[in-house]
């Protein structure tokens, strides 16, 4: 019996979110005794399949490679996964709850006529999972009656597994046909040398208080000093200061760095949902009544345009 781990990648490198999902798969594997099969699907993604095969704890890699899978269109990927599941003794299907996992897995679950458990933060046993609800204001512990359990896991709740030490077998899968109902047009991806938000050890986030996209430079400067990532509140994204991929919150990215600095962020429930599991939270806000001070470990009532540069220069 096996756990099918859906690998997320860009046909060249494995995405960090998958390394966290792999840790979750390992925990499940330990509890169930099931082995882990990784699915790498895409176009010209052999290097990814090889990298995954070199990862410890992976038993087998299923490598599907054809043009229909190039952009991970769910209409083409879901049937691939359901066929793999029915042809092999798969009991768990697992992916990170990234936009890819969220896009594809429910389509797979419904095709298999089973439920999905989204955004799992803890695997209690082979059939007991914890997940946040109401923007993380409550935690729900659930069990599933289905024989096949489809799970997305919250990357920030699991460690990043190392990508070495393995020697799995790679099994090439037959090409799949394009379902013909969807087509990739274009992509506009943000390029950055900074660490990914969801796995950075330090995150500096800005809110409406930054007043412009240009002003985010002061946060970027501090982030670079600390080797961290830059995030934003919904307000900053809605106002057009920064792009959507930076949004931290209930419906954006969930982060749990060692240090989270919130500058000019009031602290709405929906933002807290995305960062309240950070180890240390620092809030810098000119408004002493800002709700963020209720959950910050350290609060500084100050003008961020003075405080942030001063913080950077004090760090030397």
């Amino acid at each position, binding site marked *: 019996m096996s756990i099918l781990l859906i690998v997320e990648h860009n046909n060249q490198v494995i995405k960090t979110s998958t390394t966290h999902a792999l840790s979750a798969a390992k925990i499940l594997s330990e509890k169930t005794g099931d082995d882990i099969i990784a699915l790498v699907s895409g176009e010209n993604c052999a290097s990814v399949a090889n990298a995954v095969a070199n990862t410890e704890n992976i038993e087998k890699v299923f490598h599907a490679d054809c043009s229909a899978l190039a952009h991970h269109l769910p209409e083409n990927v879901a049937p691939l996964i359901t066929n793999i599941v029915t042809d092999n003794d798969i009991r768990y299907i697992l992916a990170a709850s990234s936009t890819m996992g969220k896009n594809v897995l429910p389509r797979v679950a419904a095709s298999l006529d089973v439920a999905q458990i989204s955004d799992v933060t803890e695997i209690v046993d082979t059939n007991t999972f914890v997940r946040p609800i*109401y923007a993380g204001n409550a935690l729900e512990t659930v069990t599933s009656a289905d024989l096949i359990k489809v799970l997305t896991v919250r990357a920030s709740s699991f460690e990043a597994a190392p990508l070495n030490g393995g020697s799995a077998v790679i099994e090439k899968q037959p090409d799949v046909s394009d379902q013909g109902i969807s087509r990739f047009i274009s992509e506009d991806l943000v390029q950055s040398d900074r660490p990914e938000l969801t796995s950075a050890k330090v995150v500096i986030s800005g809110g409406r208080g930054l007043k412009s996209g240009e002003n985010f430079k002061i946060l970027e400067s501090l982030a670079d000093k600390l080797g961290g990532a830059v995030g934003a509140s919904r307000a900053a994204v809605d106002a057009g200061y920064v792009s959507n991929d930076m949004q931290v919150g209930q419906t954006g990215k969930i982060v749990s760095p060692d240090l989270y600095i919130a500058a000019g962020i009031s602290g709405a429930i929906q933002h807290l949902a995305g960062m309240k599991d950070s180890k240390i939270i620092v809030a810098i806000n000119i408004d002493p009544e800002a709700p963020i001070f209720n*959950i910050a470990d350290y609060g500084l009532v100050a003008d961020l345009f003075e405080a942030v540069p001063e913080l950077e220069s004090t760090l030397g």
Partner: protein
Amino acid sequence: MKIIVPVKRVVDAYVKVHVKADESGVETDNVKMVINPFCEIALEEAIRLKEAGVASEILAISVGPSNCQEQLRTCLALGADRALHIENENTLQPLAIAKALYEVVKRETPSLVILGKQSIDGDNNQTGQMLAALSGMPQGTFASKVSIEGQEVHVTREIDGGLQKVALTLPALITADLRLNEPRYVSLPNMMKAKRKPIESLTTEELGIDTSPRLTTVKVSNPPEREAGEIINTIPELVEKLNAAGVL
């Protein structure tokens, strides 16, 4: 073009929810209930498509106990042409809701189904994708822009790394994300008019679907509490504390 917009009745986003003492769930008695914010955005998109002359009919649907008729009435007041209540005394799980909606999709043959990407209570982000799978429709999830281009709909999606644009053949399913649009407010005169409009009704039994829950909630508990922090007065003090905490 007919558009179906499923909506969900949820606790208002600004309400601080409380976990019941017996850990059986979240307290929802006497709490303000509204249309899920993402469903509002979905409905707004449908109304704009109608105003642009692209859509001819909007059917709002909600699945659950009779009180969700309140939200359906608001949908009529906002601009839906018809409202359908699919009755079940329980709040159903996404798979069952998708099955109920699929039965209606089969009967109504819409060109577009637009839903909110997730409901702010369950935070599951599944129903739209499940309905798309059951009905064999392509899906454009987390949509921040939608445009009809002939027999296709072009959807710009917000993804982890930025934006992606896809083309979907109609009929298609879209799940709305935050920035797709800013929903209009309902006006009092329209709300009064809507009180007199009919709401169609069907039961999940009549639709012949299996609504038995697959997931069992063992308990609902409070998240770990953060202890109160301290206000710091100077940057050097802050740096000292952070060094001591080992996070620099």
